[in-house]
């Protein structure tokens, strides 16, 4: 956040020790001209963020005004500053899945929502994501799911990425599931899915392969429609 990019860890530690033992020296020994200390940094970070107007959002997303109002009220209640950072996101997610560790999956979902990858989720990004998921076409939703699985965003889903996602999902179940979850479970699961989706057997799944497989599978198409939400 502030200009500490040129620091080495040991140099910083040395400075901290000097500052703690001899506080008056802080003013005289201004290494790197850093005027911020831990507490002040925190205060600087509180930024107020205002979303775009209601009409614009209404146009861009598929929600009505009333729905947007309700959504924003809930959003602002939980995040008064107007943006969600990943920590808060993980906390909120954890409340829904108390028995397991949902932080990994929450991380991936966060990245998928966060289009500009700036580490925080604004209300617009939130609304756009939800608009796709609850009101979008099958194609849009499949695109979103593909983006979720494609962690590094290169357009291909490798086996490692798929393993990461699947193990994140299993983690949400928690340790005390019936039957027990171990590494083989995830491996088998990934094998199964990869086998199904990787048509040309080149070790990665492209978007077209993904679409093809999902369209053909009735369970998946039906499943995509389950989570339609009426606010």
């Amino acid at each position, binding site marked *: 956040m502030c200009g500490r990019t040129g620091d080495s860890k040991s140099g910083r530690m040395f400075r901290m020790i000097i500052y703690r033992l001899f506080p008056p020296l802080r003013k005289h020994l201004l290494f790197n001209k850093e005027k911020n200390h831990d507490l002040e940094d925190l205060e600087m970070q509180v930024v107020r963020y205002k979303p775009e107007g209601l009409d614009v959002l209404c146009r861009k997303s598929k929600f009505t005004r*009333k729905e947007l109002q*309700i*959504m924003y*009220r*809930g*959003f602002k*209640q*939980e995040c008064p500053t107007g943006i969600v950072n990943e920590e808060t996101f993980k906390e*909120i*997610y954890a*409340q*829904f899945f108390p028995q397991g560790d949902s932080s990994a*999956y929450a991380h*991936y*979902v966060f990245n*998928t929502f966060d289009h500009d990858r700036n580490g925080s989720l604004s209300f617009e990004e*939130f609304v756009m*994501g*939800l608009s796709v*998921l*609850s009101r979008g076409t099958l194609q849009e*939703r*499949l695109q*979103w*799911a593909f983006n*979720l*699985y494609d962690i590094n965003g290169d357009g291909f889903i490798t086996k490692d990425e*798929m393993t990461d*996602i*699947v193990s994140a*999902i299993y983690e949400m179940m928690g340790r005390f599931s019936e039957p027990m979850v171990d590494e083989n479970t995830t491996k088998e*699961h990934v094998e*199964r*899915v990869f086998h199904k*989706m990787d048509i040309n057997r080149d070790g990665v799944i492209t978007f077209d392969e*993904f679409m093809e*497989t*999902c369209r053909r599978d009735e*369970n*998946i198409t*039906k*499943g*995509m429609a*389950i*989570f339609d*939400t*009426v*606010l």
Partner: protein
Amino acid sequence: MASVAAWLPFARASAIGWVPVASNPLPPPMVRQEDRRGDEKITINVSGRVFEVWRTTLEKYPDTLLGSNEKDFFYDEECKDYFFDRDPELFRHILNYYRTGKLHYPKHECLAAYDEELSFFGILPDLIGDCCYEDYRDRKRENQERLIDDKNSENGHLEPVANLRERMWRWFENPHIGTAALVFYYVTGFFIAVSVMANVIETIPCGVIKGTHENPACGERFEAIFFCLDTACVMIFTAEYLLRLYAAPDRCKFMRSVMSVIDVVAILPYYIGLVITDNDDVSGAFVTLRVFRVFRIFKFSRHSQGLRILGYTLKSCASELGFLLFSLTMAIIIFATVMFYAERNVEDTKFISIPEAFWYTIVTMTTLGYGDMVPKTIAGKIVGGLCSLSGVLVIALPVPVIVSNFSRIYHQNQRADKRKAQKKARIARIRMAKNASGAAFISSKKRAEEAMRARESGLEVEDLKNQDTLEMQHHHLLSCLEKTTRRNTDSDQDDLNDIQIRLPTINRSSRSNLNAVSGGGGGGGGGATTPNSKSNNLTVTTAIVTPPTPSTTPETESLLAQTDQSPPPYPQTSSTQTPYTSQNPGDVVKISSL
């Protein structure tokens, strides 16, 4: 779960990511046919101050009053809002709990009032947020301690006990209540002092014996006198201990208590000495037993409250004392070791071992500095300097904690004593104020009768509505009781004042359920009927001579049974002093005229 309801649609939407990798087909969702109630605003009127919230905000906590349908009991149809007759200032905090999910405790509010509000609205005090919870708990503890103090002191004054044993126990515990107890208290105190003084003087050299150069201790010279003194003291102590043991309600508990242990330790050496005085081998051990006689001085703690407080403080600061001890031990060992190795090679050094160095370290750290052991090397001197500096620090640290604990407990006791003293004065003042208002009862009685007389003689009567319905019904109830018991209430009695005192409490507890109070006796529910039909019963004169008796409930019941008959005809005669005989011919109410 604060406002997660708002995020649930989002969580559901993000679950789309599971679909492509799902092993089994996912179940379809529950479809809700009814149209979801749009979010509407609820108006809550608390003693005139209007609050408005979204319905969903309140529904966040369905196990509270506002979140459940319990609030329907408070719905006002005309104004279309929910009316609560409570404190609006405190309600603000309750509502904030729904809004933010955190319950705060306002520091300037009374804890009891806040607790009442919380219990009214069905919120557990444990939900108070971390920022305010400590403060809340501290104040709650203070209040409870105060209550316990008051209760303890109160109980001492009630309960007349006839049992000799219990009376004796009371005397022992509170010597101030009777002269016998006080005498006993001072006598034992005196003998404790005598015994301790004797122990001390016993060892002073009494003067040179003529003819020799010996200067023996007084105890050896006047052995017989001291022995008699000791015997007398021990007999008194034994008698006291046995009496206490007899009077104690729970003997096992008494025997385990600290004071009784001290008593036993104080008198045992004497008896042991009696038994083994012949055997010379053991007499050495016997002499050391005499050391325990000094424990008699602890018996003084029964006589001194300050000493008890000190003991209690030390007990409650046990952890600080333990910490002090531990850190001192650590420091002593470190410095002693370093000192030993520094001074080892000096000629004729006193630091011959590390335990020897312990003594030096202790003396230096507590800044005593006897000077019997001093370092001679430079390294030793440096270490010695560091030792004394650190000693000051280490000892000074836990001491303020102990001091503040002592101060707190001491002041608490002071406050408790002050409260006890003030309480008597307060009760006396309240009683005087009620005496004044007790006359109001009589005057209202007179008013009712005058109104009756006026109505009888056909005069225009002023609006009876001015009189409080509650008062009229209460009045009527007591009159019924008077009729039942053939007695009249006496204006001079204190009990009458109690009626007036209790009126406000009746208002608080239950408006519709008039429970009669001790002034008039046990009474029944005669006041349930409307005043008009029973106003006949108010024909009672005001000459009040006889004191009220405790209510005879069977009579009241019989009277109530008989009042079910139709009310007797209104006496048309103008004589208002006709005794009321039609209901119960047998029960002629003796009314003495004014």
